[in-house]
């Protein structure tokens, strides 16, 4: 096996060449003959009754071909929630219909109530401005506390703004309460996990074509999972049969969760393409992205940690309000519950955990999974309250964590929050982190900072996450309405090269490079003859897409299974060619040989033979060499890590600068270390962004105040340091064939509490007894906190 192309090689990415030369093909780069443009009319108020929409003037404007309003979709289905959550009293969650276009009421700023199709986008935009909509503004529900106590409802027909009131695990509640009541010490913390806008750099774009002769549709769209989008459109929204709808997600410029979901714009362009018989394209501008992409986080939490006199954790009890916005986006009900509550034991042997989550409708954009999805919220709560407890008890924050870590001999470990962790070694991660971060040098660095009049703080964090989002049987019990497996087809072509069709979608993760490394390793051939095909429902058997750090753990495992089938069949063909028995055939370095002899055939010869089966015993061997596998794992995977950072804080201005950041992760086995490191870097950038810079603010009328890059602070290069990243401490996942755990979200999960813990430490070192500060930790907040103690 060439060292530069199998498992473990830092192979350079082949997709880079097209991106570096301007030859990528993102959705908006694709134009079709006869294409026309869609532009949406969007609500400027957060809550409003639609009295009338007069399109007469708009319809007569130059270039206008059609105008749609909510009325046109009154009979089609709503965009559904993918997870059914039951409240503590056993009643199912409230599921208001999420229509293609708002009908009767608009429920958040940006909610689309009409769409114009015109020859050009400019004409469509002009016509949108000529639509006369009589929308009566109503008081908006913005704040979650008010939403729960008031009588103004986002959805009148439900009669409450509480989507559900969920308890996890309800049977543990009494024991948790008792443990807290009797504890030697209880640390309590109230915190906000700030609302974020995912901000993939490519805005969403959807383009539909329709062929009336065959009744077939093709949808090009910016999606992380084209099959799920097809399924939702087919089964729930428009009822287009799956065999008549092809969904293609070409190059996609980042997703981070926001492009998992099906959005109404996709349904609109499909309906319009059919009506007009012409391709219809819509491309969001950045303002639309801010207003309508599903946002992330937005939790308000109270967490309590009970400890005994020695510092052993006795219980975590959490009460969270989770904003779901105006409508339920596809994963919005899973994110604050099963991707959050189940992780509330963290890396610890704590015996009692109870989590209560109230999901709340508000007149804001839908909130759903954003990089990490629930797990950053869990980690932030846990790791902040642990830090606070350490300070209250006068214990070292690292020692307190170590004292309570699950130990390596305890796996498989049944956590008090209901998961079974398969593997890990949290002390080893912490050891490595102390080394990588040069913890020993901290005191000297603090002195140097102090000499400059700056405060230096050290922050630490341990995290565990549940990744490889699957398996079907577990998520089914937890309320998922879909299965969560993945699929791959390995096609060996007659000339010995391979096309591997995968259900996972790559939008920055480097699948086109990493997946061939796996197949190359198994077959003993060079990865350069293996190509990945993804993002097109007409070419790929099926797939549940890319999110939850699942691509390699789940889809990669399907690739392994399909390749194993290829090897089995290829051995049969080789045995036939070599007149030997199947059992005697060995595959090594791309050559099939009869064990103990020098008789052999190459992989290429077997491939050719498969397609020229002149002398095949057809009752034993079918022609061709192509295999498909669906893979559904036995458990989640459990990546974990130990992170730390040092910040410098200027007490004069409150400005915080991240000086050093070390991330040590257990991702199990690593296929391409270069790509894995890059994934951690990206997650860290987003997590540090959340901690220091990013905030999504609605005013009391539900106007989004941070709806552009002038108002929403995206992390820039000079806001961030170089990071020290290490993944040498991998403990292979015990239940998938690659032993991989997933690395996409770790950085975004582990970094926010690390930063905030460091900021608190910096303030404390300056003699300011600040015990908590909410994210983003802006200069104003820091400065104010320091003045007020």
């Amino acid at each position: 096996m060439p060292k530069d192309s199998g498992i473990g090689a830092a192979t350079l990415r082949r997709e880079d060449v097209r991106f570096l030369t301007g030859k990528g093909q993102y959705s908006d780069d694709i134009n079709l003959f006869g294409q026309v443009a869609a532009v949406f009319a969007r609500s400027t108020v957060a809550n409003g009754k639609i009295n009338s929409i007069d399109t007469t003037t708009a319809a007569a404007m130059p270039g206008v071909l059609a105008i749609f309003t909510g009325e046109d979709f009154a009979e089609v289905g709503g965009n559904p929630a993918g997870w059914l959550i039951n409240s503590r009293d056993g009643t199912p969650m409230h599921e208001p219909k999420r229509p293609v276009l708002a009908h009767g009421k608009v429920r958040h700023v940006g909610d689309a109530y009409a769409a114009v199709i015109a020859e050009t986008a400019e004409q469509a935009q002009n016509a949108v401005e000529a639509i006369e909509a009589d929308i009566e503004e109503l008081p908006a529900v913005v704040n979650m506390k008010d939403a729960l106590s008031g009588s103004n409802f986002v959805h009148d027909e439900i009669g409450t703004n509480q989507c559900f009131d969920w308890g996890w695990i309800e049977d543990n509640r009494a024991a948790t309460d008792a443990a807290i009541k009797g504890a030697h010490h209880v640390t309590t913390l109230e915190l906000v996990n700030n609302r974020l806008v995912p901000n993939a750099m490519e805005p969403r774009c959807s383009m539909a074509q329709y062929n009336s002769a065959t009744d077939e549709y093709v949808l090009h769209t910016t999606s992380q999972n084209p099959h799920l989008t097809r399924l939702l459109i087919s089964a729930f929204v428009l009822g287009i049969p799956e065999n008549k709808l092809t969904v293609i997600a070409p190059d996609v410029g980042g997703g981070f969760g926001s492009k998992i979901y099906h959005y109404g714009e996709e349904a609109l362009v499909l309906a319009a393409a059919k009506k007009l018989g012409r391709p219809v394209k819509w491309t969001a501008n950045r303002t639309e992205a801010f207003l309508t992409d599903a946002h992330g986080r937005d939790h308000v939490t109270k967490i309590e940690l009970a400890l005994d006199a020695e510092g052993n954790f006795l219980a975590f009890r959490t009460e969270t309000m989770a904003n779901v916005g105006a409508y339920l986006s596809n994963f919005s009900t899973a994110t604050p519950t099963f991707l959050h509550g189940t992780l509330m034991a963290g890396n610890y042997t704590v015996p009692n955990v109870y989590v209560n989550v109230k999901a709340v409708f508000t007149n804001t954009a839908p909130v759903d999974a954003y990089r990490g999805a629930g797990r950053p919220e869990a980690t932030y709560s846990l790791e902040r309250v642990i830090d606070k407890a350490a300070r209250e008890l006068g214990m070292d924050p690292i020692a307190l964590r170590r004292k309570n870590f699950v130990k390596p001999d305890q796996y498989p470990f049944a956590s008090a929050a209901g998961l079974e962790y398969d593997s890990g070694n949290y002390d080893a991660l912490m050891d490595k982190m102390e080394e990588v971060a040069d913890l020993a040098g901290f005191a000297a660095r603090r002195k140097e900072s102090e000499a400059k009049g700056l405060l230096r703080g050290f922050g630490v964090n341990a995290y565990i996450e549940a990744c490889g989002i699957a398996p079907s049987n577990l998520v089914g019990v937890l309320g998922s309405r879909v299965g969560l497996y993945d699929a791959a087809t390995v096609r060996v072509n007659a000339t010995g090269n391979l096309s591997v069709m995968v259900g996972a979608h790559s939008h920055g993760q480097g699948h086109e490079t990493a997946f061939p490394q796996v197949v190359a390793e198994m077959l003993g051939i060079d990865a350069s003859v293996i190509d990945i095909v993804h993002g097109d429902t007409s070419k790929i058997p099926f797939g549940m897409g890319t999110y939850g750090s699942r691509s390699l753990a789940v889809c990669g495992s399907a690739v392994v299974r399909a390749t194993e089938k290829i090897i089995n069949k290829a051995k049969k063909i080789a045995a036939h060619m070599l007149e030997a028995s199947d059992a005697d055939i060995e595959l090594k370095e791309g050559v099939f040989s009869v064990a103990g002899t020098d008789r052999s055939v190459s992989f290429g010869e077997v491939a050719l033979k498969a397609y020229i089966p002149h002398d095949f015993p057809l009752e034993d061997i079918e022609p061709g060499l192509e295999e498909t596998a669906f893979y559904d794992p036995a458990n989640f995977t459990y990546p974990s890590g130990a992170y730390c950072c040092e910040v410098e804080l200027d007490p004069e201005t409150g400005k915080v600068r991240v000086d050093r950041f070390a991330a040590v992760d257990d991702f199990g086995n690593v296929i391409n270390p270069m790509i894995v490191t890059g994934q951690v870097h990206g997650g860290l950038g987003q997590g540090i962004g959340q901690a220091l810079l990013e905030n999504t603010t609605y005013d009391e009328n539900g106007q989004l105040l941070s709806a552009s890059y002038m108002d929403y602070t995206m992390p820039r290069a000079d806001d961030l340091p170089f990071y020290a990243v290490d993944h040498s401490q991998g403990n292979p996942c015990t239940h998938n064939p690659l032993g991989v755990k997933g690395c996409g979200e770790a950085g975004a999960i582990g970094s926010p509490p690390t930063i905030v813990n460091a900021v608190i430490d910096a303030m404390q070192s300056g003699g300011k007894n600040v015990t908590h500060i909410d994210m983003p930790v802006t200069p104003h907040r820091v400065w104010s906190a320091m003045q007020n103690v």
Partner: protein
Amino acid sequence: MTNVTMTINGKAVSGEVEGNTLLSSFLRDDQRLTGTHIGCDTSQCGACLVHVNGRAVKSCTMFAAEADGAEVATIEGQANADGSLNVIQQAFQDHHGLQCGFCTPGMVMTTAALLKDNPKPTEAEVRAYLEGNICRCTGYHNIVKAIMAASGQDVSAIAAE
């Protein structure tokens, strides 16, 4: 409609544009040079960055008519004559300075402008120069590293992979 003529990546082109047609639209829609990307509507992201008469310009901030007679360079013209990646492009690949690739054309064009003015920038200078280019994928680590490598500096001491 007015007629504009300009040189794009060394090739003379002309086209009919409205007075308010942006250079970015002219490049993407008229010239089919879709490597220049549109990531925002407030001139902040830098995905649309090209060179006009040798200067870095966000093409979403300039009308096509203003570029009449200009020399324009876009990402499509950056590779070496034999089609291989140029030094900057190669450094981005070698150091994994891109993930989804959407910000990448702007990053490469910005780097070219930076290195022309400042052939050996420090880390701080690189980070400051990238003020107008947003990347959501990479956390910037490998972009900064790639740019320093493209300038011929030894980046082996900068952490891992």
